[in-house]
């Protein structure tokens, strides 16, 4: 009657693979998942803030150009006593520009000074 049955085997030694594999229940997946991490949100917000700061700085720089050395700016304060000299200085500066030796306005004509019919 008990033939073919191994009485020395423990119940605990039952092979695991014979256990039924749990199958995901489609109804369970529809349940609300755990709350997601807020890290990406913080990163996005940070990026927007940085972008806005860059734009603000760019606009500010555009409104207030950096003064070059020797360049007069509107904010430059002129001594009241020196006011009459401003015009003369402007003329002097123009004259200086005209005297720039790198600007050769009357170069010698680019002509052939050795035109001849004879073979050279």
């Amino acid at each position, binding site marked *: 009657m008990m033939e073919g049955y191994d009485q020395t085997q423990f119940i605990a030694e039952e092979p695991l693979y014979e256990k039924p594999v749990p199958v995901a229940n489609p109804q369970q997946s529809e349940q609300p998942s755990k709350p997601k991490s807020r890290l990406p949100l913080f990163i996005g917000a940070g990026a927007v803030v940085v972008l806005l700061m860059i734009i603000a700085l760019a606009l500010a720089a555009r409104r207030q150009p950096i003064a070059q050395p020797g360049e007069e700016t509107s904010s430059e304060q002129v*001594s009241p006593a020196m006011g009459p*000299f401003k015009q003369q*200085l402007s003329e002097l500066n123009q004259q200086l520009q*005209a005297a720039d030796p790198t600007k050769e306005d009357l170069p*010698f004509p680019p002509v052939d000074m050795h*035109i001849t019919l004879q073979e050279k």
Partner: protein
Amino acid sequence: MLATVLPSTINAQESTATTPAVLAVDATSDTQSLSAELRRLKTQYRGELEEYRRLESQYVVAKQQYVQLQTLSSLEAAVRATQAAMEARDRVLRTYLQILKVSLLQQTGIEVGQKEAALLELDIAIGRVEKHHLLFEKELDKVALAAATTDFEEIGGKIEDTSYKVLSLLAIGKLQSVYDKATVLGSDMKTVLATEGGALKQSQRQRAFDETDRALGDVKTQLQAVQQQLTDHDANQSKSAYEELKDDIRGVYTRLAQVVSFLKELVTI
């Protein structure tokens, strides 16, 4: 009046007058007339240079064909093209010299003696070009054209020397003029500001004026050196001497630009 300064017609005789009419005109000519004349000459010069380039190209092609073909017709074409190019070159050079003359008349900051001598040289150079130009009143043959070539070889170098000498004078004159004005302006500013502001500001200004004066002193020394250099090269002013002079002129300009910058800064102190 400007007609006496710039003869529009070809003058057969070389201008060797000891006192050119231009000197008399110099005192009376107003700046506006000279500016207008300069504009007119520059426009004329551009047109003549363009024409010269066209004729020079034709001369090069015609000469090349003559060298290759050695035929009578190619010789005739080459002679005609060469003559046309030489005539055009004379016109360009004459107008250029006239431009230099008006520019020299206009330019301040040049010592009177040097200016008079340079104007006389320019008159002589213009006379030489005009005399050479007369050779082309009729159509030349190959032999006559060779003679015209030789004639130009004699005057070409002198024209270049005169031109570069005048260019040097103009460059120095422009800087000298700025230096003179800067000196006067600096002095005026110093006078006006002598009693302006508190003691602290006055001492700051004084230091600034001292530095400006030092820079002006440097410019004066440099200008004297450049003038001396020009005088030394006077006898044979060539292109290379002019180029050499230009290097020194650049140095003067840099220091002078600093003076002007100092003066502009002084206004704000």
